[in-house]
């Protein structure tokens, strides 16, 4: 549905977006992830026709942003970074203005629908400047969906909110994602993990990863780590790796009392847990705990975005 082709955006001599290519399918919720200053907002600003691309093009259905900017703007609902609003207006006046500009025919119904969806009951006739940050965010979202757009682009929709508000906004986003194509940018991993079907990670203007959470995790690591907490004679531990095939022993540390923590590693495709358990049983050791190390998206993210020089 949305296709970015060799997108380049330069600010003077600084290349903010560097030959970015990806495609967003209809109905997909795409998480656009990257450290601050990676080019997320710039990319979104080009898609929403706020900025013009330096090179390349973006196709939405059969339209492209160079020639059909007006039609494309009509299809998009956009919540810019930091949620700018006309704070001196009341919520009603603001939504009415946006609806007029967006040529919403059935304003009354749409207004009722967005009030219900965004939970704006009770604040409709208040000036926006008197609202809390959470409510302002809802007003921003209401503005973005008042014309029932096919595509919704949210630039850091939960930044600056408290944990409860973040949960509410996330629920709202999930609900919106059922019927719309959604792009959410964020530098918060849990958020993207919680709502998105697919994740694109961008760093220094280039795409460094693209796939579902699971795909990203598995592509990141080819090995599984297993952590064992045992009571066993320390000198016998190396034999475990020696006797079982394809297992390497990484470390043995003594914990409180007799407890030992042993870390072993094997290829990600295989499952060696039962073999290891049986070995422990045969050796008459006591197994206190056994778990696989979870590779989190944080690890993937850190690994992809921290490079030589350690800048992140």
């Amino acid at each position, binding site marked *: 549905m949305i296709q970015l082709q060799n997108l380049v955006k330069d*600010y*003077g001599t600084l290349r903010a977006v560097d030959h970015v290519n990806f495609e967003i399918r209809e109905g997909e919720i795409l998480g656009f992830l990257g450290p601050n200053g990676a080019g997320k907002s710039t990319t979104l*600003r080009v898609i*929403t*026709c*706020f*900025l*013009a691309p330096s090179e390349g093009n973006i196709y939405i259905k059969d339209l492209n942003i160079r020639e059909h900017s*007006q*039609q494309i*703007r*009509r299809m*998009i609902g*956009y919540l*810019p*970074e*930091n949620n*700018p*609003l*006309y*704070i*001196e*207006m009341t919520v009603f*006046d603001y939504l009415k*203005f*946006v609806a*007029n*500009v*967006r*040529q919403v025919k059935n304003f009354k119904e749409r207004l009722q629908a967005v009030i219900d969806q965004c939970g704006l009951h009770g604040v409709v006739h208040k000036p926006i400047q008197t609202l809390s940050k959470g409510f302002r965010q809802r007003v921003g979202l209401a*503005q973005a969906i008042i014309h029932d757009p096919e595509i919704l682009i949210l630039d850091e929709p939960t930044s600056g909110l408290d944990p409860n508000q973040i949960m509410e906004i996330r629920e709202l986003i999930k609900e919106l994602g059922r019927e719309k194509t959604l792009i959410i940018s964020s530098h918060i991993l849990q958020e993207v993990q919680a709502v998105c079907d697919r994740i694109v990670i961008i760093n220094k203007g280039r795409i460094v990863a693209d796939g579902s959470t699971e795909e990203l995790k598995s592509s990141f690591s080819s090995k599984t780590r297993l952590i064992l907490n045992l009571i066993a004679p320390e000198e016998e531990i190396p034999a475990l790796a020696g006797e079982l095939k394809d297992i390497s022993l990484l470390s043995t540390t003594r914990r409180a009392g007799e407890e030992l923590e042993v870390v072993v590693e094997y290829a990600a495709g295989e499952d060696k847990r039962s073999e290891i358990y049986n070995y422990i049983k045969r050796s008459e050791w006591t197994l206190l705990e056994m778990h696989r190390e979870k590779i989190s998206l944080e690890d993937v993210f850190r690994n992809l975005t921290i490079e030589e020089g350690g800048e992140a």
Partner: protein
Amino acid sequence: MNYTGLIAQKEYRGYFSSPSAYIILVVFLLISGWFFSSPLFLNNQAELRSLFGIIPIIYIFFVPAITMGLIAKERNTGTIELLTTFPLQDKQIILGKFWAGVGLIATGLLFTLIHLITIMILGRNIDYGAIFCGYLGLLLLGAVYSAIGLFASSLTDNQIVAFIISFFIIFFLFIIEYTLFLLPAAIVGIFQYLSIGYHFSNLARGVIDTRNLVYFISLIILFLHLSILALQSRKWK
């Protein structure tokens, strides 16, 4: 309603949603009223000349004050990103804001009609033609200054900077008239044509001359066009 009208309406209402418009209008009316009424009985003339003399000077501060926020504020708060991603053309945004500025100036002028009522009560043989021309001139002058102020506002995200830029452009156009005697005779004609007072004074005397109208309208078009370019520049830098 068309887009230009929507923007104009939003901006015009926006003026009155904060105290600034009220303060500006009150100050405008106080100063113009004082300068109109204090020489009225001295001159003993049923005319608005003194009003047409002072308003262009008040405009030098008044118009930059009402136009400084038109775009600079949107840039500052980031709402420019919303406005320019709505299905609007930059031309419609600029024109809408221009009409809002002109609208507020017209509102101020509307209140000065009370002085006309005063002289209608006090005097006889009032030259309505001259008064009409004078108001037309004031409106056109306000429109030119609005276009300049809008252009200044579109250059920056700082309202104070916008005020200063428009103040200087307007002041320059205003002051040329008084510097003509310093210039070599060969170029006096050109500078006289550039000076805004030269064109306004004809209208204030009750003469509608196409040359003057062309001057005002070309300045308006020029500065509106420059504003559109300044707004579009976000796309290319």
